[in-house]
């Protein structure tokens, strides 16, 4: 049986761990609020943007813009994997990475080259370990990113697509559904499919366009990519904090359970040793009497 002192140190250690997990939980919940409010602030923009695009794309077909064109012969596919920079958030990153690597394997089975764009350190590490080619990586950005970053990444994707380095681009990110549910989402973003753009119903208004419809689409479509990338990053960030919150919550609870169990063990051990000592004393006294 463990000695009394051992059990006591263990209880102390677990209590300290509990303090840490509790603090992390609180930090994560503050960050989650922040991330959620950013999603809220982005919503009006995204909504208006889709409305506008819906109005325009209703009449557009593939030939209007190179970003809409599907390629007959595909050689290379780019996967944008958005993960968090830090661990300790349960299975969140693992799920995202799994989704990303599974997709990569499928694409390879189809005879395509796979190249990765990694946002977030965890994803990059895993992709590097799996020995896929990483074209661009952004690390330590999930804490403080803004639209500029999404815009930069989006532009790079568009450039690679236009000079035929990539023939298809897929985005993998963690969608934030609720506090308890974050799901990896695999979404194809390039080429932009007509249905995707027209998914939002047009408002049916007749507009005067300036410049032409084509000219406006040429401005809107690249931004559409950036908007999607940005949304992916916002969602991943919120999901990360939600996942960390629940992971830390569980850890704190587990600490409580362990402290309870160990305290019980401690008391039992103490009692046993007192009983043993008493028996010794009583036995000694009996022996002297006899």
């Amino acid at each position, binding site marked *: 049986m463990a000695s009394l002192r051992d059990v006591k140190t263990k209880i102390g250690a677990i209590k300290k761990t509990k303090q840490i997990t509790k603090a992390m939980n609180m930090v994560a919940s503050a960050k989650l609020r922040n991330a959620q409010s*950013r999603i809220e602030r982005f919503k*009006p923009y995204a909504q208006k943007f889709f409305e*506008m695009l819906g109005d325009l794309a209703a009449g557009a077909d593939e030939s209007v813009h190179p970003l809409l064109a599907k390629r007959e012969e595909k050689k290379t596919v780019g996967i944008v994997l958005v993960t968090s920079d830090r661990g300790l958030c349960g299975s969140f990153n693992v799920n995202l990475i799994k989704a990303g690597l599974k997709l990569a394997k499928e694409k390879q089975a189809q005879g395509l080259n796979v190249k990765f764009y990694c946002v977030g350190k965890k994803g990059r590490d895993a992709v590097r370990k799996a020995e896929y080619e990483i074209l661009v990586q952004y690390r330590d950005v999930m804490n403080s990113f803004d*639209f500029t970053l999404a*815009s930069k990444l989006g532009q790079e994707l568009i450039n690679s697509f236009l000079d035929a380095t990539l023939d298809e681009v897929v985005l993998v990110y963690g969608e934030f559904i609720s506090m308890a549910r974050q799901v990896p989402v695999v979404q194809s973003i390039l080429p932009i499919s007509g249905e995707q753009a027209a998914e939002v119903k047009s408002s049916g208004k007749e507009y005067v*366009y300036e410049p032409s419809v084509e000219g406006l689409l040429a401005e809107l479509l690249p931004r559409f990519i950036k908007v999607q990338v940005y949304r992916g990053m916002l969602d991943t960030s919120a999901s990360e904090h939600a996942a960390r919150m629940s992971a830390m919550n569980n850890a704190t609870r587990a600490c409580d359970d362990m402290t309870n169990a160990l305290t019980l063990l401690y008391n039992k051990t103490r009692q046993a040793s007192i009983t043993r000592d008493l028996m010794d004393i009583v036995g000694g006294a009996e022996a002297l009497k006899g």
Partner: protein
Amino acid sequence: MSKKLLLEIVTPDRKVLSQDVDYVGAPGALGEFGVLPNHIPFLSALGIGNLYYKDAGKTHYVFVSGGFAEVSPDKVTILAEAAEMATDIDLERARKAQERAQQRLARAQDKIDHARAQAALRRSLARLSCRNSGDKAGTC
């Protein structure tokens, strides 16, 4: 003549403005255009420049870059990648950005660098002029 226009300016990071105004002037891709209430539905790309609106006899200026304007009879919506009210513009920062852009422009070798530096320069100049116009109009 009490009819007013609702002007809304949104960027990916926040809603910059939502207010009833009398008149909106915007830097369209093909030149400036003005909007009064009861305008026909109109959709335009915006360049880098100053948007202004008139409200209660005063003119207010807003810097916008990389955006679109959607005009309907009673509403103007501006979607911009960046937008700042003249009062929020940091003059010091804009001046520094201008210097940086000019230096880069002088050094830029290839076409892309050149284009980027030029865009940065235009943005910083537009910010400065936006602030100046705002100061002159007494709305800063």
